[in-house]
């Protein structure tokens, strides 16, 4: 009954409505007419918009709509003028830096920031902000190479640019070029890794001679360090010493190398640099005085904190913390710190190291209890400290588990220049501190990068105990070898790759001339480059010299292994000459006695070669660049 009543009510209402519509039908018709029109208008408008753009971006403010920009598509990007100029500018920059007489670059922000004077790829690549997409591929792959191998960055960059330019010049299809480039690369690497290769020297670790030459070559090739010969000898000896100190004494099956920490001492003479086993921590002078004489025992118990002990409140999050008047949060935290101090005292700790700041009250408390506290150690020292002392870095103020403590053998305080240091001597030292001096900031930074490279190169050399001849000789020798192989034994390659003899000749010539022009990049002052027809080494001569009596004009080849008094014949590197098989035997007496050899890291160079060819192949393979501009 009730339902029926409801129904009738609704009906009644409807009838009322209908009657209203009937009454005002004119108005209704008008409104619906306008509505329909408005609707179609909006439909059309939105359709137009969606045709124009692919989607509509919603901003925070709903009323703001922005159309997406269309993507830019560029076909045949390598052929564009823009790419060619950009690549040649980039090549100009890197090749002008190459080698010991390379020119330096001043990197600065133009508004009075510090100036970085460098000729190293790592600093250069980190500071160049490249916008061209293809160049970005190149710089990214170079940066990856440099971060893994430290050395041979410029080598890779120049070779890659040369390969791209040469491949564009011959105008064959990218597929053929890429296929053959790969084959030539494998020819190179297999030759360099083979026993017959005569620009590869295997390292005898019983003498430091070759390693010193290697380090010296690296230092010499970075003129922005501003070192004279005496200083180069000193620093190379230090680097080698620092490296040897990181090798554990009891070597088992696999060695885990330690770490050399580079400690800055700017403003001093380079000759004042030194190496110490253990870890040096710089401390302000006023703190040195406060340190009590260390009590003599076999070892000191160490606690290492990575959290701040400055009495900060830990992050209180968003919102406001209300504190009643009279309650001091700082005092509460300090009380917690002092509790921590008491625990350290109870545990018999002798030395507290903290990455960040220690509260002065806690420091005072510790010093009263004859605990040495050193704060502001810095994040860079944390890992070596933790390893050398065998501590677990402590990150909380709560109770400390006893196995996070470590120990050191001794602690001394020393002074170098005007700076005071604590010298931490660990029990089993595979960590050392290289105290590096140079006269001003710019040259110090460059020297530091160079030392890091040299240390890394030594590590790579111990992994793969080979060294390559430097000074451009490996490149010219390799080019001569490939020319000879292509000339005399092309059958295998032709069979494998299915290309014609002419294509192979063209591409091999492009590859070899890329290597040779890389070697020519070592010359920045207009000299000419020759190659001898016996060893295929690199010789430099003044421009426009009369081409008689090369013997008297030349002195030594680029790496310093051969001198011109041997019965040799020479030819310009650019000129075409009869392909010859470079002699494949190394004069071992000369290698082991000569002190002025220019050498290169084997691992870095092989990897550089591979990266250069593969990156060039990747770039040559590009046929479209689609840039999303949003």
């Amino acid at each position, binding site marked *: 009954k009730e339902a029926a009543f409801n129904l009738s009510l609704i009906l009644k209402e409807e009838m009322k409505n209908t009657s209203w519509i009937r009454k005002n039908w004119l108005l209704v018709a008008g409104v619906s007419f306008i509505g329909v029109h408005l609707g179609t208008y909006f439909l059309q408008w939105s359709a137009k918009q969606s045709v124009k753009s692919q989607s509509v971006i919603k901003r925070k403010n709903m009323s703001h709509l922005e159309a997406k920009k269309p993507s830019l598509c560029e076909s045949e990007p390598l052929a564009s003028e823009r790419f060619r100029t*950009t690549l040649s500018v*980039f090549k100009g*920059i890197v090749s002008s830096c190459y080698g*010991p*007489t390379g020119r330096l*670059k*001043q*990197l*600065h*922000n*133009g508004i*009075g920031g510090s*100036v970085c*004077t460098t000729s190293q790829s790592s600093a250069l690549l980190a500071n160049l*902000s*490249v*916008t061209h997409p293809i*160049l970005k591929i190149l710089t990214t792959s170079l940066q990856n190479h440099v971060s893994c191998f430290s050395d041979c960055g410029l080598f890779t960059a120049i070779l890659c640019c040369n390969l791209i330019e040469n491949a564009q010049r011959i105008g064959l299809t990218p597929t053929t070029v890429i296929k053959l480039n790969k084959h030539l690369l494998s020819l190179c690497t297999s030759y360099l890794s083979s026993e017959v290769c005569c620009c590869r020297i295997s390292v005898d670790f019983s003498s430091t001679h070759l390693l010193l030459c290697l380090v010296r070559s690296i230092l*010499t090739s970075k*003129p922005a360090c501003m070192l*004279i*010969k005496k200083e180069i000898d000193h620093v190379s000896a230090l680097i080698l010493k620092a490296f040897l100190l990181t090798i554990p004494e009891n070597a088992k099956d696999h060695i885990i190398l330690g770490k050399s920490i580079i400690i800055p001492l*700017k*403003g001093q003479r380079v000759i004042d640099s030194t190496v110490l086993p253990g870890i040096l921590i710089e401390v302000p*002078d*006023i703190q040195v005085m*406060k340190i009590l004489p260390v009590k003599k025992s076999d070892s000191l118990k160490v606690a290492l904190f990575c959290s701040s002990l*400055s009495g*900060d409140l830990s992050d*209180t999050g*968003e919102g*406001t*913390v*209300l*504190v009643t*008047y*009279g309650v001091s*949060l700082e005092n509460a935290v300090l009380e917690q710190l002092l509790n921590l101090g008491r625990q350290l005292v109870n545990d018999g700790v002798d030395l507290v190291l903290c990455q*960040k*700041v220690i*509260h*002065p009250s806690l420091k005072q408390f510790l010093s*009263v209890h004859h605990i040495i506290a050193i*704060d502001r150690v810095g994040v860079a020292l944390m890992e070596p400290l933790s390893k050398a002392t065998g501590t677990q870095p402590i990150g909380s103020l709560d109770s400390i588990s006893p196995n996070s403590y470590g120990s050191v053998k001794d602690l001394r305080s020393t002074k170098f220049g005007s700076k005071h240091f604590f010298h931490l001597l660990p029990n089993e030292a595979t960590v050392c501190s290289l105290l590096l001096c140079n*006269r*001003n900031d*710019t*040259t110090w930074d460059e020297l530091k990068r160079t030392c890091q490279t040299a240390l890394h190169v030594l590590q790579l050399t111990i992994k793969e105990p080979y060294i390559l001849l430097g*000074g451009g000789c490996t490149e010219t020798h390799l080019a001569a070898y490939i020319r000879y192989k292509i000339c005399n034994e092309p059958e295998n390659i032709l069979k494998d790759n299915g290309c014609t003899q002419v294509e192979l000749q063209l591409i091999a010539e492009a590859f070899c001339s890329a290597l040779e022009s890389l070697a020519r990049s070592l010359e*920045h*002052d207009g*000299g000419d480059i020759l190659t001898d027809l016996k060893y295929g080494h690199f*010789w*430099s001569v*003044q421009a426009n010299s009369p081409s008689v009596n090369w013997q008297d*004009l*030349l002195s*030594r080849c680029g790496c*310093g292994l051969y001198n011109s008094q041997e019965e040799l014949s020479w030819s310009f590197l650019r000129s075409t000459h009869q392909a010859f098989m470079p002699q494949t035997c190394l004069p071992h007496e000369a290698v082991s006695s000569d002190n002025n050899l*220019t050498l290169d890291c084997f691992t870095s160079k092989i990897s550089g070669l591979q990266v250069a060819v593969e990156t060039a192949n990747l770039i040559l393979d590009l046929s479209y660049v689609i840039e999303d501009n949003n």
Partner: protein
Amino acid sequence: MIPGEGQGVVSRRQHAGLQHLASFAEAGRTFLGPVKSPKFITDGQGQESVLVTSAARLLEGLDLSGAAGQLLREAVLAHSNAYGTGVSTLLFLVGAWSAGAEECLHLGVPVPVIAAVMEEGLRVCTDEAGSLQASLDQVSTLLDSTQTLSSLDTHSASLCPCVPSAPGPAAHSLALPRLPRTRVQSPSLTRWQTEPQRSLSGAPRGRLPTGHRSRELALACSRHFCGAGGGEWARQPQGAGGCSAAVELGLSHGDAGSMRLAAAAARLLGQSSPAPRDGPQACALDLTRVVTCCLPGLPEAASLVCAGYVAVVPVASATVARDLQARPLQVLLLEGDLTESYRHPGFRPPANVSTVLGSVWGWPAGTEKPWADRVLQALAQLCVDLVLVQGLVPEHLAERCARGQRLVLGSVAGCVLQAFAEASRARPVAYLSQVDGDCVGSGVRVAPWHSGTVGVAAEAGAAVTLQAEGLRLVTAVLTSPLATQGQSRADRFWACACRLHHALREQRVFLGGGALELWCLRRLQALAGQGSGGAPTAPGGLLGGGSWLASSLAHYRPAVLGRLARGWHRYLCVLLCNTARCASELEADSLVQRLLQDAVGPCWPPARAWGGRSEPGTCALGEAPAVLDAVTPKLEAWRRALDLVLLVLQTDSEVVTGPGCMPAGPPGPEDPLLL
């Protein structure tokens, strides 16, 4: 690319950087040599101006925004921080050698050859300059045997190297007007200087066994040390942290007044050093134990050195100092500010904590005393009379302390705190709340400071002096008539102190006054003449043995070495002009030429350089009585100058990163290249 984001590669002509260096260096030309012409640096509107008298201060005032200028500033700062002296030499040689390097470029010499040859030339000079070094002992003997006391006095008064070798009235007429010729006698002076000697009554005078000759030397070291009786020079045993007076005068470079202060500081420190150590370090002047206190308004001659710490305090505190004079004081050392809001460095105050006033748990609001009251109470409990604060002290707090007969000194240097910590066994703390009985030191005495008969009563306040037994600290009180001069007065003092410090530390000095540079000129000429046989051991230096550049070195060597020598030549000329010995650079040039020709023979005895010829009417450089120079700072200044020039020389392009690299305007041929 988007403007303002990428970078431009600005290719410049190769020597733009060198030109910048040369033009910057030109500004410092007048600071070379003993007679320095001060410069005013004014800002654009002429509102403010600074008086500069040293190359380092000049560079602080210049706008060196370019890359070369930036490197120059860096080099000068690094040298100045490391050695404190030789900056004007550095600056001048940067200019001279960058001009020389540019000339070489115009001649078509390859850049690596310029670098290698210049480096080789400087290396030969510095390596062989050892023959012009003399140990302090030798120099003292030589000078003492050739000079009488009266001539010492003469030379001290006229140190510019233009004194005819025969002492006479003419010498006096050449005296520099700046040097005070009256001796300041003051009872208070005598008192302060004799006190440390009294306190060390057990120690025999001159007990430092420093390897000096033990014979008594007639010292005219400092007018401040003259006996109370009259104008006689005091006769002191040598060794108490000093060197002979002649050496000091030689090192003073025309600023005998400052050098006397520095020497007095060295001597005082030597006396107060707790335990004499052997070796050359023992008699070095420890510069971290020397502080300066500038007092404007007094004549320059009133400057002196006294043991202990002198500071200017407000008048109220000075009165307290007078009252506290009688007894030894308890001292507290604070490393931070003495303010309520001070927190140690590294502490981050939480941003979002607010205190609720009112008494939720029955804490009556406002019962806690104000912070200042608590400070006073703490000081009273610990019976502290003197607080030395490294940071700031609010004025009202200092006044309240003064009312309670406590002396609070703010802005005290860290080395002063350290010295007092050692002497009084106080332990520096960061907060007052940390203080317990162990931190408070004792035995410090305070007194008002007087300069002669004139009491120092400036508007700002008065000077007080703090003393303690065994305190290894001396203060050089530097007075100047004008407040503007204060800075340069301090700079001059520090220059002398640094020179003395290095001479004492190394126990070796160079014959200065141009003798060294003249010798280098001579050496370079010989080297250039030798041609290819110059350096047979290291062909090409850093150039690889195989490079054609190495074999072409011989061809270019004379030209490049000539340019390097030209730098020193110009140095000598400017030195002569600045000291008014020659009216024009042309005259100076011919004088240097003549000197070079006169000194014949491959092995030019350096002694001749200052033994000298004494024709009347001519003034040879060699006649300079005994201008001496510190060894390492000088050689380092040369090396740094050449390093900078070669660094800029070998740079061929600038890479500008970040904003500011996009020049407005239409593209032109000089526009940066973009990647």
